[in-house]
């Protein structure tokens, strides 16, 4: 088991090394992409900065909280796009029969699918994420550690949710854009000040679309750590991860081959 895990880690590092090498075949293009991504993100931050400048606070949330939210969501999305974006292509693999190539290899198919695609430009999300953390006004060693941990948890949630959406392609044909849109809805939900969701809205915010686990709890934990919030966050993340893995395995069991020959 341990040897298998170490082998997967080695393979993961090898894939990442080759991704970076491929991206740097054209250095200027790679760097321009990263810079453009950072500017993209900062323009979105600017938009919210204007809102907070005009209104002061939104139901108790100030720009500091918003900056923490940007830090967590940008880092989580960067991790997803750089190391596991392949899962977003699962519907495409199912439709064109490429999934068979992944299933016939001795390594974990989910691992291979996840690492099959990476967008180098998303290193710019890390730059924005860390920049926003340092601008948040909540900078100290503890909050820095918590920010990293919460970013990782947020990544796991993004990954799990995307896996569930991608698996819809096993059941519904031509569902690439359906999955994309629902995934975008989660990110849009999570990119708003969590304080605007109260009462019934808050329940929806934490369950059907689990954006609260991406925004509300990470921000609360980084600002002021409580075991209660931490417990809710970890439980929620674990439930979604297990649910997504179970759903993927269930879908695989019901998958009939696309009859495409090929070796990967």
């Amino acid at each position, binding site marked *: 088991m341990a040897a298998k895990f170490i082998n997967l880690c080695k393979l993961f590092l090898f894939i990442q090394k080759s991704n970076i090498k491929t991206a740097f075949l054209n250095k200027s293009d790679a760097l321009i992409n990263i810079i453009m991504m950072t500017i993209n993100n900062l323009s979105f931050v600017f938009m919210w900065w204007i809102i907070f400048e005009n209104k002061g606070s939104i139901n108790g949330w100030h720009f500091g909280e918003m900056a923490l939210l940007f830090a967590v969501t940008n880092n989580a999305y960067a991790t997803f796009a750089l190391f596991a974006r392949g899962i977003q292509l699962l519907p495409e693999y199912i439709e064109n029969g490429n999934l068979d190539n992944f299933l016939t290899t001795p390594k974990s198919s989910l691992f291979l699918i996840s690492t099959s695609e990476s967008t180098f430009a998303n290193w710019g999300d890390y730059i924005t994420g860390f920049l926003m953390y340092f601008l948040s006004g909540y900078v100290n060693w503890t909050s820095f550690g918590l920010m990293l941990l919460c970013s990782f948890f947020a990544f796991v949630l993004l990954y799990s949710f995307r896996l569930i959406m991608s698996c819809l392609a096993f059941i519904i044909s031509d569902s690439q854009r*359906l999955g994309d*849109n629902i995934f975008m809805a989660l990110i849009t939900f999570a990119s708003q000040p969590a304080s605007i969701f109260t009462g019934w809205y808050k329940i929806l915010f934490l369950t059907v679309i689990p954006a609260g686990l991406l925004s509300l709890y990470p921000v609360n934990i980084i600002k002021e750590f409580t075991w209660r919030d931490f417990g809710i966050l970890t439980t929620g993340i674990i439930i979604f991860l297990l649910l997504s893995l179970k759903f993927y395995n269930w879908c695989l069991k019901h998958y009939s081959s696309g009859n495409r020959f090929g070796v990967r």
Partner: protein
Amino acid sequence: MNKYTSLFLISFKQAWNKKANLSGMLFFLFILIFIYNRLWETISTESTEEGLNRVFIWYLLFAEMIILSNPKIDRILFDDIQSGTMAYYINKPISFFLMRYTEALGNMSVSFAVMGGFGVVITLLLTGNPPFEIWQFPIIFTICFISSCINVLMYTAVGLCGLWLASIRTLGMAIERLAFILGGAIFPLSIYPDWFIDIAKWTPFYSFYYLTIKLVYDFSWTNLMEAFLLNTFWVVLMGFFIVLTYKKLTKRINVYGG
């Protein structure tokens, strides 16, 4: 029947039959309207300005109809250029550029109409009466549809940049963000400081999005004419760019092959 009309109709029917895609898009639109309605409601409650959500959610609906109906024509064109598919079409008795653009228009028209119908019902339920008169609705709807056609044309130009760039994903995203910020596609430009609006006025995003969508809460024939004239100016400029790029692209394919 004209071959381009046939292409438009085929693409229209194909898009209409992709029910899963349409449902996903409507779900996303619903989430957007729902979230920003909550946001503006909260801001309205905290400030003295009442009914902000009524004005801004109708504004957001038309903005998103323009943005979301774009069928990612930039990526399709980029793939055609990079994979060499374009070479197969270039010697056919049909303009490759017009073929892709017409197909995109067919796809966009379905999304625009479906989102329009669904969005109007949802927005009416959430906010009540719209900030414009009922007779103004067909005019606003039509001018937004024209903006949507221009939006598709702009992304066509982005796709043609595949002639020089190794990847256009980030450029496409940058254009989208500029539409959000300089075009006021999420928050109207009226909430931004004057210096920022002065910068935005020099960009095509200002007329493609803001001037057009602003008619929702500030309808006047003067504003309509201003939007029309500025849009025409930018479309002519963009047309020049597209024609030049397309000529260059065709020449390169004729010389080097696909």
